[in-house]
């Protein structure tokens, strides 16, 4: 397994380089333009001048190599300098990957937005998983019971009603209809500057997180619980379950040790696919509640054709996808020792 992991990690590097090139190619070909959202009063000549100042007149491969140099060499060196004060080369005037719309280093923007994204999107996955696993297990164990039917109904509604609708619905109910002095009132706009330094502020933080977290958690839980249920059902009818029961194992042990472990493979896959999504943010939900995390940063970047920003964000995302799929593969081996890759 160790051999396999090392081999995979080694193979990851050319894969990621190739992915980064494909992403850059797509971003370069996309027909949106950084001057597209400027007011109409800015004349074409000035727009052309702006494009030049962004370096858009250089050929595509030059811009790609420039990004590679900035991202793979300058940014890590800068991190070393800022975190450990190790200076290699010209530390003060290093060209970093800069966003076109804010003219600031993209990495700094990402770091600034990590907290709210991890809080809201990360929490929503945690809540989603915590809801989905028990629902999936019980639904499968008591297939076609009223619990299963209601669970199916709610999770299907949860998945087929998009977040752009549930978000607005919750705002109308909890921010508009309910009186502001009420205990149940929740803020519709997320305050990213809130510092949790007291119980009062912690309470505020919890309140402003409830709606976005619930909207996302409902959506995630719906999907996960379906896979959990289906996989459990498959395993419940296997011979080894009958054997385990025949041996006189407690029902709880049969269910939660034997069946659950064997049913986790699809669930692990879905979770491994979701973890990078946490960092990718949740574009629609972040927009509705103005959480302004990584998802909102990405969508603003795309709308404004901010190539360095979108390229960097998407690439980090790609790294996470590749890594977590590797993690999933390793977990398969742990869950089912018969799976061997060597």
């Amino acid at each position, binding site marked *: 397994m160790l051999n396999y992991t090392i081999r995979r990690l080694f193979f990851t590097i050319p894969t990621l380089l190739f992915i980064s090139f494909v992403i850059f190619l797509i971003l370069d*070909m996309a*027909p*949106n*333009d*950084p*001057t*597209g*959202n*400027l*007011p*109409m*009063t*800015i*004349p*074409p*000549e*000035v*727009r*052309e*001048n*702006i494009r*030049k*100042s*962004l370096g858009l007149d250089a050929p595509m491969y030059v811009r790609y190599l420039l990004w590679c140099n900035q991202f793979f060499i300058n940014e890590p060196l800068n991190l070393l300098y800022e975190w450990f004060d190790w200076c290699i080369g010209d530390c003060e005037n290093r060209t970093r990957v*800069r*966003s076109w*719309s*804010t*003219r*600031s*280093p993209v990495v*700094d*923007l990402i770091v*600034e*937005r990590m907290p709210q994204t991890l809080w809201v999107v990360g929490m929503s996955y945690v809540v989603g998983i915590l809801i989905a696993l028990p629902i999936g297990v019980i639904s499968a164990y008591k297939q076609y019971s009223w619990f299963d039917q209601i669970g199916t109904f709610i999770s299907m509604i949860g998945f087929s009603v998009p977040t752009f609708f549930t978000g*607005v619905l919750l*705002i109308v109910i909890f*921010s*508009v209809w309910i009186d*502001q002095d009420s205990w149940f009132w929740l*803020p*519709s*706009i997320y305050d*990213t*500057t809130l510092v949790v330094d007291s119980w009062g502020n912690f309470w505020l933080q919890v309140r402003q997180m409830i709606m976005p977290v619930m909207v996302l958690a409902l959506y995630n839980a719906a999907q996960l619980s379906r896979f959990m249920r289906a996989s459990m059902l498959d395993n419940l009818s296997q011979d080894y379950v009958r054997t385990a029961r025949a041996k006189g194992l407690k029902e709880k042990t049969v269910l939660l040790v034997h069946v659950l472990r064997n049913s986790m493979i699809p669930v692990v896959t879905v979770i491994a696919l979701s973890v990078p999504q946490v960092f990718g943010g949740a574009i629609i939900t972040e*927009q*509705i*509640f*103005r959480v*302004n995390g990584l998802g*909102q*940063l990405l969508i*603003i970047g795309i*709308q*404004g*054709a901010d190539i360095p920003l979108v390229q960097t964000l998407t690439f980090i995302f790609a790294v996470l996808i590749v890594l977590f799929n590797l993690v999933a593969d390793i977990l398969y081996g742990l869950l089912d020792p018969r799976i061997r890759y060597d």
Partner: protein
Amino acid sequence: MNMKHILAGALGATLVAGSAVYAGSHEAQQGRDGNVNIIYWQAVSILNPFLSGGTKDIDASNLIIEPLARYDEEGNMIAWLATEIPTVANGGVAEDLTSITWNITPGIKWSDGTDFTSADVVFTAEYCMNPDGGCQQLTSFSDVESVVAVDDLTVTVTFTKPKPFPYGPFVGGTSPIIQKAQFENCVGAEAPNCTEQNFNPIGTGPFMVDEFRANDVVTMVANPNYRDPSKPAFASLTFKGGGDAASAGRAVLETGEFDYAWNLQIDPGVLADMAAAGNGTVISSYGTAVERMMVNMTNPSADLGDLRSTLEGGPHPFLQFAEVRRALSVAIDRNLLAEVGYGKAGTATCNVVPAPAIYASTANDECLVQNIDLANQILDDAGWEMGSDGVRVKDGVRLSILYQTSTNAVRQDTQALVKQWWSEIGVETELKNIDAAVFFGGDQSSPDTFQKFFADIEMYTNLFDGTDPEAYMNSWTCAEIPNPANNWLGSNMPRYCNPAYDALATELSTTAAIEDRARIVREMNDMLMSEGAMIPLVHRGRVSAHANSLQGVILNTWDSEMWNAADWTRSE
């Protein structure tokens, strides 16, 4: 009208500095009203308006940095950091119109406590005019030859040619003054690398940056060195961005979490219902923006290859005929479009220059009333026969239109309504909507840009900054036609080319007297309208909303919406 006063010198002796105009009670303390919350549905990216032309960036930066003169809510110019508006009459503008001299109000300080001097003004011009800086407000400095400091409080701007309207540099929210000491090392190619400066500019305005989070939220505090010690009334200000217009409106009008919401382009009925909750007030005001259709005078057929939508490709198969263009125009019920799509923020118009009043023509008002019968009559008379499928044909040419615009709920509603009216006069319409970043983006490789105009009709809004329409009127001269040779850079979308129009444009550039300028502009407007190069639809205003407890808000479409934030107060 306003210009007339200024240029003719009829406008009193002086207009005192803006702060003095609104001088409040001196007992009042700065920062007495706590915090004010502003929400924009586009988030602020940067606080340097020279590096970002976005309205949200300009508005936010105008709380911090200020120009020498501004426009008030009626479009009148008022001195802001200058002592008065220079005119020919008061000697501020040279007789030959090639230079203008500004006098700075003494005693103005930057928020760091240093003096505001002419050196800062000169530096601002150098900063923007640097060819490597990619300055987005370069239009303000067009035709400027030099900017020279005469003494600490006097600056002279010299132009390369006589400027009948010399109020480009340092006037209005798009041309504020930045501090030389702060930006000295950020000129030219270095400009984008000064993140610290671009995020925290030092200014003379009522507020200064406390914390800046790009594309998210800006928190500001009152400037302790502001010229009026009783202002601003708010100790701090939160400028939140992101989301969509409907939820921004909801946050002010229904939930009351915010005090001011910008540009609420939402369904008028929905907005009215939100306002009925009683937390806030919807305000609107008109500038020069007109939603219009551009008519393609050239042939956009894909068969033409590289000659698509160019003069060389030949005229449009049916839009070349004036009667078809006129019929299309009179078949539209503009009042309904304004009511359905814009509510308080829209009125029907038949002119491409609807304001200021002195420039607005009344010669084209035929189209204000929808007349389907007349449209049918016009087409019948011209020999367009109704076919069996309900589409008119003449000489094998079907009246079938591809009608494109950017993606926007109101525009799609307008498209649907127009499609129906045109079907009533035997014109078939296919609707197409394109992502705004692509449509307005001007990417050379994309076929969907508004410059390439590979469609028969396209619709969008255009406007001019400030009150002088000269540059705007130049948009429709022959030289401005986009084509492959100029990389499709040009603003004459209809590909309208008329020597008589070009002659008027030349005349306008050398005429100084305001009445004559107005007459020429009206004539140009009428020429465009009578020939049907454009079909204007709605004169669009701006709609914003503020909480009832927020006092002193005056919506200004001629300048930044935040222009008088120093005067805002809270009342319970």
